[in-house]
């Protein structure tokens, strides 16, 4: 961790422990960590995400006490036992099922924040890569968790997604068979998904620890993207950011509670209240909302293998972002052109999400029949997916590298707090009376 430790053991016991296992020093330093003073609410999602992970692990462990990972018993153990008989089982499951969506809301806003303020750029590339790893692990965990209640969408979702691996020549089939534990999605699949669903969150927790470590080496970025230059640029993490994060978490909890108590099934699919049936295919197999953009990219491409590769690539480009961005300026606050392209990227990704929830032949503008282009009507969900996916990739692979070399940026402030503090002409920077009151 950066900076010298400021912890002073106060009692004999603390001094004794400090020379043997300095856990108190470690925690005290974490709490006193010098944090840029200008972090806004977009920076509260890190705390919110840690909170989400804790909620998923605690509620998940309680669910696992009542859950039966067998094809014959899974649906009943969730819908009959947990939802009806276990005391507050409805609450535990409501928190866990909606908690997964909340987790993704937070992670998406956290990622958008990172892109906007250039938090992935040197010297924070490792921090960014670890974040991408967490995101991929979250998707895997949530996908396998969604299979556990063994409803129709659980079963068919598992079938569609695991079948994708079969697209790879040679290795595809054996890997699918290994994953299924047989020749179709069945009891062995459910058992291994349950085991992995229990394991992965703890792997995520470990990667989160590395992520925080990688944060504390270079320190936080901030909305200006300007480096911290002196101690007066920072505040102690506690109490300044514990209280700000705490307030943000309380607002987040209100949103969370609205879903858990008043809209418990709004983010789910009604089909999952029907027990898994390998003989009846649901009319529309749709993944959970947080995976929809990737599902749309997959379906936009007629060839299965190419579709799978595009899907993988759409996540892969996130990993490559630190090396794709050529701009010298970190924060988009001072990159007006980048801001516009980024906004379009958000819209394109939102459009992909919408496309993922629709039938490929569906009309984008209802009632309008456009010209046929190759295989689909131009006014079809498929073509909107293709155009949006093209922009999605172009943003990372073409726009971001070129823009950094050509754009005109706005003047970047010398210090991260000048844009906020009223300029006191003549007073030396850092000697402002406002700053002096802070101990």
């Amino acid at each position: 961790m950066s900076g010298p430790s400021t912890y002073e053991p106060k009692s004999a016991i603390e001094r004794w422990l400090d020379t043997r296992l300095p856990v108190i020093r470690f925690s005290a330093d974490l709490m006193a960590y010098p944090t840029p003073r200008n972090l806004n609410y977009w920076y509260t999602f890190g705390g919110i995400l840690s909170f989400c992970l804790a909620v998923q692990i605690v509620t998940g462990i309680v669910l696992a006490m009542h859950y039966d990972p067998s094809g014959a018993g899974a649906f009943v153990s969730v819908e009959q036992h947990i939802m009806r008989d276990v005391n507050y089982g409805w609450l535990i499951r409501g928190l866990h099922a909606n908690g997964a969506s909340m987790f993704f809301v937070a992670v998406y806003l956290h990622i958008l924040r990172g892109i906007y303020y250039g938090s992935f750029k040197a010297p924070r590339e490792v921090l960014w890569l670890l974040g991408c790893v967490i995101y991929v692990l979250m998707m895997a965990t949530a996908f396998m968790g969604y299979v556990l209640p063994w409803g129709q969408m659980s079963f068919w979702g598992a079938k569609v997604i695991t079948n994708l691996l079969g697209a790879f020549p040679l290795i595809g089939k054996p890997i699918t068979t290994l994953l299924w534990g047989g020749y179709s999605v069945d009891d062995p699949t459910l058992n291994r998904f349950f085991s992995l669903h229990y394991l992965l969150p703890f792997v995520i927790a470990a990667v989160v620890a590395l992520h925080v470590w990688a944060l504390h080496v270079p320190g936080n970025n901030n909305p200006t993207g300007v480096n911290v230059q002196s101690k007066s640029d920072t505040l102690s993490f506690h109490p300044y950011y514990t209280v700000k994060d705490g307030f943000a978490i309380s607002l987040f909890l209100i949103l969370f509670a609205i879903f858990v108590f008043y809209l418990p099934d709004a983010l789910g699919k009604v089909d999952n209240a029907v027990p898994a049936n390998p003989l009846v295919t649901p009319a529309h197999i749709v993944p959970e909302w947080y995976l929809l953009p990737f599902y749309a990219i997959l379906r936009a491409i007629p060839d299965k293998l190419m579709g799978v590769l595009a899907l993988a690539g759409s996540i892969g480009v996130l990993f490559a972002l630190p090396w794709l961005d050529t701009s010298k300026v970190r924060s988009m606050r001072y990159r007006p052109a980048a801001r516009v392209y980024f906004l379009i990227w958000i819209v394109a990704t939102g459009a992909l999400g919408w496309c993922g929830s629709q039938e490929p032949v569906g009309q984008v503008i209802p009632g309008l029949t456009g010209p046929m282009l190759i295989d689909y009507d131009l006014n079809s969900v498929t073509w909107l997916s293709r155009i949006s996916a093209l922009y999605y990739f172009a943003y990372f692979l073409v726009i971001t590298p070129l823009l950094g070399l050509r754009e005109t940026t706005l003047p970047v402030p010398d210090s991260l707090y000048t844009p906020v503090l009223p300029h006191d002409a003549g007073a030396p920077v850092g000697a402002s009376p406002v700053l002096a009151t802070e101990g």
Partner: protein
Amino acid sequence: MARAARILAVTMGLLCLAGPTFAATTEVPPKDIHWSFDGPFGSYDQEQLQRGYKVYREVCSSCHSMNMVAFRNLGDPGGPFWNPKYPNPNDNPVVKTIAKDYQFPDVDSETGDAIKRPGTSADYFPAPFANPAAARASNGGALPPDMSLLAKAREGGADYIYSIVTGDRAEAPHGLNVPAGRYYDPYIAGDLGSFWKGDPAKTPPGGFIAMPPPLVEGRVTFDDGTKATLNQESKDVAAFLQWAADPKLEERNRAGLGVMIFLLLFAGVLYASYRGVWRDVGH
């Protein structure tokens, strides 16, 4: 605070992505009924649940199972026969009487012989058919779905069930070729193109269902004297099925109110401490 509100708004916007899905089939949206259990303060109307249970028991249960509901659940808080005098529903005399009316297979613990014994409050509602094949055989090949979760397993929930059973199905549109043993229902998702003789652009919305219209006026006699119109029976049974699918709704709404009040106060206290801690700090 304003910034926090903006972030909250963006968050809400993101969630709107989880919109409804597009259907290649067509159907008429279910009738929008005003229910006592709608909204954050909703609760079940106990008399309605009792009437609905009667319709379920005397009509629907001859074809549809309800495997996840036990007799004791009828006496749970929020249930049709909940009585605060019997906090343990197993003691509830109404529940015990209902259960006793059914015979359950069992094993005589002395002789080991297969016997029948009267039901207890711990027994689950018996299914009308021994297995799905038997259910199909009696229903022209169609399987009557289990009703434990039906209201949660269909888009539209209770509105949908109400719309299906009130059915405007007797009058299939002229020109629609309805197969034997099927009934036209505008609320069922379907694609009737190949059964329609008229202008393809005017194909009626909806599909076919294998269930004959289960209710008619006066099909049951309500114990509370309510007139058993088709509308009344349908509403009551739909409300009962909603309860069966979501028996914890009242407990959830009540807990939700407490949690929301707590969270608002908690957020207020945290906001005040935030302002306090950050007072006089440039940022």
